């Protein structure tokens, strides 16, 4: 398995084996042909200007930080002042950020260099990165298959080493699932660990910012930089940096749980199932207690997640009416302009979710569906609390099956929703969950209790040496 790319490149820069300008140019040249439809816009001039400054520092004998001069990618839902931020949508295809997201600003502050805004499902609405005006993102391992989503462009760029790391967004699995589909690491941190300020909101109560990278160490480095309380996002909290030493060796994980019904499910691919069972056996062989846990049925998890996410996205996207920004299409009057603008500029999937959200929020429906959804979510959270009294971490497959062919998912939205069965529960629980590229063809998820992101990384290091 790969060791830290960030550290390796940092050493090369310090030893003057490569200049930062050449490094950035090399990555830009890899991105330019856009072989996998990962690129929404390249930040060529911006990135090269920053690279020259890093080279000047090195030439002057100044010390550079670990992330200084490291080229990275940004899912095209994050604000970066002066750059296009399209959310892969027609509505915002010419929209420029007027400010910079907190998480991205923190990376800029330590000298990391953004080189690309990355393709994704429009507004995060999808699990395949096909719901985009920039063309379906192609899987890094087999380009006939989907990249996964919604952070598909980011995952593929990392897998192909077009970027050293990328910043994705995860609302119901949008970092973890494409990481699994492309054989790399992707972390959804505990909700609130990283500020959402400047992330275009999809479902605010589960939206998480997270790193995608080729090693656990790089995930750790980038996570530490982005974490922290932010007055601009009142759901953030103070967290301690995670050190390399604390996650180096396993000693604290004595018991591991997994959900029985995930494995017994009819929907699971037989190979994913048998591979997962053999992971469980290998963990047991190391003297760790493994416990099969009861959990909610997959369709309950998926329905609860989508009900709440649709309600939240209907509210969040109501601001997109073409008045102050966006691709306005004029109608006879203001209201007409709103509804034509939104009808012509939102994708079918986005409209499906907005309409669904407004259905559950409307009078008569809200008690029967939305409030019940909230109650189910509370119950799911309590279930997790009980589980983590019994086990230290929970492992699960990332997806029931392998990536579908490009073109197949859009035909059947319900099947796409159901394919999120293993990721959405941890989103509702706001729990730290990491995809590791091991165990099954689409990887494994490691989950711990809230704010125990450290244990997740620690167990990932243990698994790396174990399976």
């Amino acid at each position, binding site marked *: 398995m790969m060791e830290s790319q960030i550290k390796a490149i940092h050493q090369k820069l310090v030893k003057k084996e490569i200049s930062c300008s050449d490094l950035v140019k090399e990555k830009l040249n890899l991105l330019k042909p856009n072989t996998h439809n990962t690129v929404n816009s390249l930040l060529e001039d911006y990135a090269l200007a920053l690279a020259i400054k890093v080279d000047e520092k090195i030439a002057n004998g100044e010390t550079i930080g670990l992330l200084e001069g490291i080229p990275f990618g940004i899912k095209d839902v994050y604000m970066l*002042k*002066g750059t296009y931020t399209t959310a892969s949508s027609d509505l915002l295809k*010419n929209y*420029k950020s*007027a*400010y910079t997201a907190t998480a991205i600003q923190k990376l800029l502050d330590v000298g990391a260099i953004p080189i690309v805004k990355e393709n994704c499902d429009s507004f995060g609405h999808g699990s395949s990165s096909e719901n985009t005006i920039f063309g379906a993102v192609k899987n890094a391992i087999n380009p006939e298959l989907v990249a996964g989503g919604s952070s598909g462009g980011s995952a593929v760029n990392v897998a192909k080493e077009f970027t050293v790391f990328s910043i994705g967004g995860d609302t119901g699995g949008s970092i973890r699932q494409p990481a699994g589909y492309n054989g790399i690491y992707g972390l959804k941190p505990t909700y609130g660990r990283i500020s959402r300020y400047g992330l275009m909101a999809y479902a605010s109560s589960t939206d998480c910012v997270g790193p995608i990278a080729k090693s656990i160490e790089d995930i750790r480095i980038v996570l530490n930089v982005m974490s922290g309380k932010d*007055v*601009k996002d*009142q*759901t953030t909290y103070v967290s301690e940096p995670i050190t390399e030493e604390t996650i180096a060796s396993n000693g604290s994980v004595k018991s591991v749980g997994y959900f029985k019904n995930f494995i017994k499910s009819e929907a699971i691919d037989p190979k994913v199932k048998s591979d997962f069972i053999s992971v469980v056996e290998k963990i047991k062989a190391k003297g760790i207690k493994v416990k099969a846990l009861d959990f909610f049925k997959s*369709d*309950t998890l*998926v*329905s609860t997640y*989508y*009900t709440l996410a*649709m309600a939240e996205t*209907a509210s969040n996207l*109501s601001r997109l009416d*073409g*008045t*102050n*920004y*966006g*691709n*306005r299409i*004029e*109608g006879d*009057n*203001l*209201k*007409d*302009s*709103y*509804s*034509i603008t*939104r*009808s012509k500029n*939102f994708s079918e999937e986005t*409209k*499906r979710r*907005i*309409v*669904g959200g*407004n*259905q*559950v929020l*409307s009078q008569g429906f809200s008690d*029967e*569906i939305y*409030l*019940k959804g*909230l*109650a*189910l979510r*509370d*119950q799911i959270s309590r279930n997790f609390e009980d589980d983590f009294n019994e086990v230290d971490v929970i492992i699960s497959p990332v997806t029931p099956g392998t990536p579908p062919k490009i073109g197949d998912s859009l035909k059947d*939205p*319900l099947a796409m*929703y159901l394919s999120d069965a293993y990721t959405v529960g941890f989103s509702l629980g706001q729990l730290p969950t990491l995809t590791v590229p091991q165990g099954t063809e689409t990887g494994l998820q490691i989950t711990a209790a809230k704010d125990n992101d450290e244990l997740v990384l620690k167990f990932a290091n243990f698994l790396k040496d174990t399976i």
Partner: protein
Amino acid sequence: MSKIMTVDVLSSIKGSKPSEAVSKLFDVIKNAHPSNNSTFNSNHNKAVSIDDLREDVVIESSATERQIIKDNFPKEKNGYLVVSKVIEE
């Protein structure tokens, strides 16, 4: 005022209709039996403390910021930013 509003009006999306796939998700919720159907007592203390509130100060936008906001505006005429005609109902 009680008026039935259709989803296309509620959503401000011309011609939009409820979808079958989404209705199937809702059916699962309708048929579920949460152990406790009240969310009013489980606020998890999410309220923000007064000490954590932002300072109540006006922050001036920079010149570039203002320019970007103007550039993003969909329509301009003779130096004015133009909105759609507002109607009274």
